[in-house]
């Protein structure tokens, strides 16, 4: 029988019968076969019974995936394209003169200054000669692996709606995030860890916080799980204070025994079985998650490479190192935030974009390069997609006369992709002469999402979830396209 995969609209919420549930999450019978296979081949944490009832059971993609995992390096606040990956010699020429183009400049009535050249030197790197600014000396070593999209654009000038759009495809709250769509579409390979991990900046989260990694109208199981880079990484992971590990285990055993006694009266209730197993899974998660963040056993060269020994890079470096360890354990989607809180604590360089970017690039450049090197070393490079960028870019003009700040620019900005399935060593698309607006091969945020899904083996037009009378999808109702030039 040919059951179309992932196409049964989720007409009724899950949790009626398990069979129905499987249908809704789109596993179908192909999914069941896969589960059986997985349980025998020993995917961590999965056994047949758990898989048959879990919304996160592994599911096959629409077509052969180039990447199994995705790391989204979210440069919160909006990095300036003309200072990072989009060199504009014309800006130097017109430095200090007023902007006369027709793009709407800036946001929220902030003062508009004159055109401001980048103080950062751009050089050609690698065999490809990709131009990268001096903000990223380490990342630049991977120039031949990067595919810079210089012609990104979004629909909004505000951080809240911008972050929402980059993460959920919509400027409105309440829509599932990219990672939720991936969890829904592909499930997880390792039940002992969350499928979708988010690590935020110690200064705070992005604006809109959890709305950015929500499951929206999907079950909460698909939402991003906050992961802390030290101590107890997950909420309520640690055994409660005053309870010894031994007592914890004994209590769990008692719970299991009593629940199994109860199950005897209800032998065919799969929900009860699933709930019994969820406690065992949680127990295994305690060990698995705690060991992932225990980076002390990494050798000193590795720690050095990630910048763990320098104050500036230690935090992001640790997160990048944990990212590699999470990838090794099969986590599907990991999002790291650089920058948190407000204004200059993020890439939101309204006051002094130059010092701002020196700080945030300085914190992240070395760890990101280390992650790429490490993924290549471990072979994970070939199955991992890496995405770098923020919710929008920054204006080529200064914010206010003679001030070194830059305002928001959503008409054109740069992001880069690297890793599995990505054709590196190229910059695609272009902004106008001054860097305001995407003019050549403009790529909407939705196009980026379509491309990421494509690389993960999912067709953005077919990955749908039935809600409010409509088959919803990440890329919404407008025409979005896979950015063909990105693909290797």
């Amino acid at each position, binding site marked *: 029988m040919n059951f179309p995969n992932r196409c049964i609209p989720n007409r009724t919420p899950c949790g009626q019968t398990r069979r129905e549930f499987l249908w809704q999450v789109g596993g179908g019978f192909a999914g069941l076969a896969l589960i059986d296979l997985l349980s025998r081949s020993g995917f961590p944490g999965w056994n047949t019974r758990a898989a048959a009832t879990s919304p996160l059971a592994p599911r096959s993609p629409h077509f052969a995936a180039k990447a199994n995992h995705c790391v989204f390096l979210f440069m919160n606040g909006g990095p300036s394209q003309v200072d990072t990956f989009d060199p504009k010699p014309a800006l130097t020429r017109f430095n200090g003169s007023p902007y006369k183009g027709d793009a709407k400049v800036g946001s929220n009535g902030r003062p508009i200054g004159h055109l401001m050249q980048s103080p950062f030197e751009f050089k050609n790197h690698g065999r490809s000669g990709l131009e990268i600014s001096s903000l990223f000396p380490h990342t630049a070593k991977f120039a031949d692996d990067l595919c810079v999209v210089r012609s990104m654009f979004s629909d909004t000038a505000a951080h809240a709606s911008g972050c929402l759009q980059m993460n959920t495809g919509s400027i409105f709250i*309440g829509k599932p995030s990219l990672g939720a769509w991936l969890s829904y579409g592909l499930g997880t390979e390792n039940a002992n860890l969350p499928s979708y991990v988010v690590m935020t900046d110690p200064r705070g989260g992005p604006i*809109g916080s959890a709305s950015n990694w929500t499951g929206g109208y999907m079950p909460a199981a698909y939402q991003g799980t906050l992961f*802390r880079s030290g101590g107890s990484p997950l909420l309520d992971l640690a055994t409660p204070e005053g309870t010894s590990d031994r007592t914890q285990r004994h209590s769990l055993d008692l719970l299991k025994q009593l629940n199994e006694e109860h199950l005897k009266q209800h032998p065919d209730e799969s929900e009860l079985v699933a709930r019994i197993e969820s406690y065992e899974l949680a127990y295994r998660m305690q060990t698995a998650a705690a060991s992932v963040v225990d980076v002390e056993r990494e050798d000193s060269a590795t720690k050095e490479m990630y910048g763990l020994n320098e104050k500036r890079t230690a935090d992001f470096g640790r997160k990048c190192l944990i990212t590699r360890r999470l990838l090794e354990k099969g986590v599907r989607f990991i999002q790291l935030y650089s920058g948190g809180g407000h204004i200059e604590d993020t890439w939101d360089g309204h006051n002094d974009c130059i010092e701002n970017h020196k700080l945030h690039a300085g914190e992240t450049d070395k760890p990101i390069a280390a992650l790429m090197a490490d993924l290549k070393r471990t072979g994970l490079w070939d199955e991992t997609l890496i995405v770098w960028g923020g919710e929008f870019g920054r204006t080529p003009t200064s914010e206010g006369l003679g001030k070194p700040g830059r305002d928001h620019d959503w008409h054109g900005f740069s992001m880069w992709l690297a890793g599995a399935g990505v054709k590196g060593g190229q910059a695609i698309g272009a902004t106008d002469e001054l860097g305001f607006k995407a003019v050549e091969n403009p790529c909407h945020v939705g196009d980026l999402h379509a491309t990421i899904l494509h690389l993960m083996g999912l067709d953005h037009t077919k990955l749908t979830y039935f809600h409010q009378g409509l088959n919803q999808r990440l890329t919404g109702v407008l025409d979005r396209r896979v950015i063909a030039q990105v693909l290797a």
Partner: protein
Amino acid sequence: MISSRWDDSGFATSPEFIRISNVQGPLRELCPPLKENEAVLDRSKTAAFTSNVSPSEQNSPATHSDFASNSHRFSLAILIFGVALMAAQEPGNAANTPDYDRDIKPIFQQRCYSCHSRLKQKSNLRLDAGSLIHKGGKHGPAVLPGNSAESLLLKRVLSTDDDERMPPEEKPLTAGQVTLLRGWIDAGAPYPKDETIPKTPAEHWAFQLVQRPGLPVVKDRTRIRNQIDPFILAKLEERAWKPAAPAQPRALLRRVYLDLIGLPPTLDEQERFLASPTDEALDRVIDELLRRPAYGERWARHWLDVVRYADSNGYERDAEKPFVWRYRDYVIDAFNADKPFNRFVIEQLAGDELSDACAETMIATGFQRLGHWDDEPADPPTDRFDQLDDIVSTTAQAFLGLTLGCARCHDHKFEPLSTVDYYSMVSIFSPLERPQKGRTELAVPVGLPAQVAALAERDHQIARLKQQTNTLAASEIERRIQQLRIIRPDLPQAYIMQEPSRAAAVTHVLLRGSPTRSGQIVSPAVPAVLAKQQPVFPPPGKRSSQRRLGLAQWMASPENPLTARVIVNRVWQQHFGQGLVRTPNDFGVMGEPPTHPELLDWLAHWFAHDAQWSLKRLHRLILASNAWRMSHAKNPDYAASDPDERLLWRMPYRRLEAEAIRDSMLAVSGQLNLKMSGPAMKPPIQQAALEANTDKESIWKSSSETEASRRTVYAFIKRGLVVPMLEVLDLGDTVHSCPQRQVTTVAPQALSLFNGEFVNQQARRFAARIRRESGSDLRQQIEFAWRVALCRAPAEVETTAMLKFREREVEQSALEQICRVILNLNEFVYPE
């Protein structure tokens, strides 16, 4: 054939088909763009088409680009077509006559139904039944049996003239599809003689007025307790099935408490009932529970889900909605007072426009302002319509069970709902404005109209006084102001929208939903398919347009086929886990048909007539039925044949919602704070969960333990930061109307319930209570705990397990550990 050129694209109309195949085409076809994309509509063509097509088609903005202006695209299509012709034939059709059901129907479904089926009949042609294909449309029969070459269908499909070719959108049919059609026509275009002709949407069951069916005749009268049972039993008897036996009295007692008030029975209450646990005694318990305020606290929450209640707006500032809790309290009070549901509907839609308007009815209109709100919108004109869309979509879903929101940019693809229907509804709400001062929202004083007017006059006088600094001493001004405030004190504030004037601005249809592209003018109306005759909307009143009043009166009238059906179904769903219609917000063509259509109509009719819209009477009826008193006993044969349990042969087994779990824990531990109403409390959120917020220091000020021990319906729902324990227990969507909670089972729930501070705290309090109330003997302690938590004594094997656990553990905390285990038992969250 201009009309065909302007047909909407799309391919599917029948729900059966959509369920299985709609992902084969891009969703763009299901829902055309919200905003314009690059292929804009040529305005000159708009003029051409408006002069040539019927009014209903005018309302449907064309969604595709003009082929003439995209000739390169069309050439490409021909090229692809040519290549396809050379390609190998599709499998399984060359030698044999194509099969109508297997080969032919799917082609029509995919490519033709959007214009030629029950939903739309361009050129009067329908292709969704063999007989109709033979009959054809205004250009004659679509097929000449045995003569494909002369058949209109083939001619149009193969035409190279882009004005003629069908389908006009997307690529032409593939060579394989054409071959199939040709083979089928040449074979005489056969189709099954018993093929049913799909009904037109106007004939859809839910759009017909409710009539009361007679009670079915059943054999086994012993399982009939009231009028509900024959409907359930008749379907079972058709299969020679038997309903599950009644549940045990203890199980029923716990069930009825959790169902009606969301709390377990106390030991006293258990003893009282179990002394003589008859059906009639249970009826009395039900009556008693319905009189408790806890009933409203439990049932209001279900309605709050439907109306997307939250305490904050979402987005960057995620600001608190001032005084929004008054709406929550209004709903609780309405349930407790058994406010007739039709009145409840009217008050929420038009409480300010009633002749007997008062503070309470004005607070009710808070319904309209509960949505998410971005105080810094990317595009203010669009934002205005987004806010209206939130109101219109929620109103249609909550009261009518219709997905009207889909008709914002184009006529609904699957329901008989047009953009005119949608914008007519928009025109009803568009006079409303959100009281605000920049990014800050303002609340509104509410009371009797005269009180509100007098207060406005007072404030006017105060403002004037404040300007008289030249003629009056400051102290004198202050004195007079004080006096005014004493004579005319402040009124309560409410979080509601306002109509600033009785005159309403003109509303247009927005082409493709774009605020910059106005179409025809619309006036207040209800969806055409629901009303043979439009209700009369009253003229503007003294203070407002009274448009909402017109809508509200129609909503609550017997002329509306949906309101009673939709609410009866929601109540049924809360009692049985599933509604009779399992898509509680969608009673349209796309919704699921009812499992027991006659029962639904009987209940709806009874509710609106005999019960006079009393929800408490409806509860009594449902809970008195044999159906509701069945046990969970699972018959494996029935389950195999009816895995979704649509026939209700047992009481469906289901987990409690987040609120009932948390409240039950508080009740069991003895900590439950029964304080009702007022501003929301904030259950503690651990610091680790706040780290990811921009303002992690200030975002959440947890309430004291006493305050946080109030019922969960009083917990602050912050859209950007949902209390983790509630979130993980499937609290659900806080942004859109949530017709039914999801039930997922995942490890983070176990982490929260086993390791989380809330449950551990309740376990400690529970243990202390046990020591206090049941003495020091462990065996007695265990039995006490079990009765309090689960409404039954433990079995010997259970007691033994706990005693053994105790032996292995250190003295002090063993009972706490046992309590933690009890609060985590499956039986605790899955009541019998």
